[in-house]
Each structure stands twice: as C-alpha cells, then as structure tokens.
C-alpha cells in the first residue's frame, strides 16, 4: 500500500466517520450534517404559524417586503431566523451574548421576556436597508416596518390566514 493510498484512506474516514455519526444520531453539529431535510411528515391536523414582512410608506401605502432582497446572504434561511427570533431562541443558549444576558437579567427571566424581544432590532435593520435603496424624496420610503404573524390552524385546506399579532417598528 502506497503513501497515497494511506492518505486517501485517512481523508475518506475523516469525512465519512463524522457523517455516519450524524446520520445515526440524526443530529446536525456543524460542520457535520445529517440529511434530515423534510424528515417529519406533514400532518394536516397540525397548526402552523407564519409571518409576513410589510412596510408602511410615507405615502400611506402598505407594501409587502421580501427579506431576500435586503439580506440575500440568508437565502433559504430567513423564515427560520424569524421563527427563532420570535421564540427568543437566542436567549436560550448556554453562552449568551452579553447584551442578551443583560436584557434577560432586567426582565427577570426567560418567562418574563415578551415574544420577539430582539425583533425591533431586526426590523430596524431591514427597514434601514430598504430605505437606503430608495431616493431621499421617494414616496416609497418607509415610515414604519412591521412583521405580521398569522396562523393556519390546520385540519382542512382552508382558512390559512388567521391574524395573530404584529410587531411594528417606526423608522
């Protein structure tokens, strides 16, 4: 067996052994992936929440905003980022960001924290990015940006848009 064979054997094992572990434990531990995409079957009975990002222009219109056009680095990930932000997932880490630790201390615990405690920061960032792409005098500039939460209760292929709540941020 040549040195090349040994090198390639080591490379193969170094890549496939962690992938095999991820597969057996069905866990994604970056950079090792278990291909568990769509692994849970979709049950019609299960209700699901979803969100719409909208802006209120200076001319009084309400416009749909696609976050992909603002932060395209997060393609295929925006909806889970919003989902996690609404659920305050960044406050449930073992090692908190110091600013989150401070906010949690002020609130008196995770239960006291309102849903989407960091949503205003995210909405502000998106609102500013949107406005920077509009001319200063444009009536399409936003005066506010909001995230509307809806729920599809499930059970039937109807009634998809039960309004739940909104987070609004003045710009």
């Amino acid at each position: 067996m040549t040195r090349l064979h040994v090198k390639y054997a080591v490379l193969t094992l170094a890549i496939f052994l962690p992938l095999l572990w991820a597969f057996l434990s069905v866990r994604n531990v970056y950079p090792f992936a278990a291909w568990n995409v769509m692994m849970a079957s979709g049950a019609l009975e299960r209700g699901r929440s979803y969100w719409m990002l909208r802006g209120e222009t200076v001319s009084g219109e309400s416009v749909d905003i696609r976050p992909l056009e603002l932060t395209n680095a997060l393609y295929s990930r925006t909806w889970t980022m919003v989902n996690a932000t609404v659920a305050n997932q960044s406050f449930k880490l073992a090692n908190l960001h110091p600013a989150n630790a401070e906010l949690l201390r002020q609130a008196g615990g995770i239960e006291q924290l309102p849903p989407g405690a960091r949503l205003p920061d995210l909405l502000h960032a998106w609102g500013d990015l949107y406005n920077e792409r509009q001319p200063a005098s444009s009536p399409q500039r936003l005066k506010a940006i909001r995230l509307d939460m809806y729920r599809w209760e499930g059970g039937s292929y109807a009634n998809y848009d039960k309004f739940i709540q909104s987070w609004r941020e003045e710009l």
Partner: protein
Amino acid sequence: MARVVVHGTFLVSVLITSFAALGRLPVTIMRPTGAMKFLPWSFYDQLVTPRGMTLLKVAMVVSLLLSTTGLFTFFSSKTSFLLVLFYQGLVRSFGHFNHDEMLGVYCLAVLAFTPCADEFSLDQRLRKKRSDRPAFAYAYPILLMQLLMAWTYFSSVLIKLRTAGLSYFSADNLPSLAIYHSLDNLHDTSFRLAFWLPQVRAYLPFAVGLVLLWEFIFPLAVFFPKVRWWILGAGIAFHLSTLFFMNIFFPHQLALYLLFVNWDKLRAQSVTHEHMTNTVTFVDEGRG
C-alpha cells in the same frame, strides 16, 4: 475540472451575495451552531458589521478566484475551504442548518487535500512540466465527491423512513408541507402551485414513493454510467419541483451534478472532432 466546478460555484455564490447587508443584522439574534460556538461573542461583534463582512467577502473572493483558476493552488484550495467553512457556519448561526451548501463544503475539503491543479490550472501552465502521479491520484477524489453526493440522498431517505415511517406516505404529507412553505413572504420565491396539490392528494403518496425510490437508488449513478443521466435528470426535475411547489431550492447541490461529467472523455472527444474537422478541411483544400 472538478476544482473549477466546486470552487467556481462558491465564487459565483459569494460574488452575488451582499455581505455588507448581512453585517447590518443584530448579532444578538445569532445562535452559533456546532463548531461556531467555540468563537467568542466579542469576535462576532467585530465581524458582523458592514466593514467586517466586506473584508470577509474580499478575502473569500481573492481566495476563491485563485483556487478556481488554479493559481497557488496548494495554499488557495486550503484557504478557500477554511473561509467557506467559516462563512457557512456564520450564516447557519442566523438561520437553520440548511443542507444545500454542505456537499460543496465537503468537496472543498476533498480538493484541499488532494492534487487538483495538475491540469486546467494556471499553476500547471506556469510549471510547464506534467505531473507523473498515477491516474488513481485524480480519479479517487472525484469518486469520493460523487459518493458524498450519493450519501446526501441515500442517507436522507433512510432518515425519513426511520423517523416518520409509513406516515411519510400519507396523502396529506406533501400538500401540508408544501402549503406551509408557500404561505409567508420570507421564503426566496412565492410560487403558489402548492395550493393545487390537495386536488390531486390521492396520487401524491405515489409521487412521494417515487422520490424516495430515486433517493434510494441514487448511488447507482456513481457506479453505472448507463443509468447515471436518468438518475441525474430525475434529480434536476426533483429540485425544480421543490422550487415550484415548496419554494425551496438547492442551487449549490444542483451545480455539483457537474461532478458526474467525465471531462477527460469530453475533452478527448472534442479534440478528436477538431482533429477530424481539420483533416477534412486539409484534404478538401488539397483537392481544391
């Protein structure tokens, strides 16, 4: 050529991505994933800014440009792998563990530690000396990358059947998943074909079964060239259908289908064709 496919895919992807915009997002919504947890928050505070992210983009473009063209490849293939590995971890720390780019990351790892610039590279042109490595040195890394792609599909079907069992064949599985992914405006596209699926729900378990069967037999594409293009063709149809029905797309994975093209054979055929054309022209001119 595999190097150009893999590194080139990430180069294009990085070039069309606004890193500065990503740097505007609040660090406080991040949830570092896996190995990204080892980096301190102060590092993310410095990096996730428009300036920090622009610097990262410049470094990635330079490195990927060098590795794609095959210049200083011994180093640039490794820096490209490390930079992409880090960046993919960073974006996963904002959202979920999206699998699209992961195969590409593993292919970068393979190319970083195997000879990939002895042909079709600036290094080779500058060296002007052919390598005397055996064919195995180049063939095995390509086989490894193809096996990795086969693993993505094959392991996926086993995980689905292990976790969901036969309920995966429920008539409501596909329509309810597809409709859920078509309701918001946070997905990358807004196709509404999913709302048509309940009308044909009785047929959908068969469609799901066909997809699972295709994932299960994908490894055949590695070993049997005769069925390869049928399996890859079905893969293209599958990924396009997830785009139109679920607003979910895997462009990086799809681009890496090019790893199944036998570039040496293609080049040999092209050279033979060129040679024959030149000969015919020469003979014709001689007759004239």
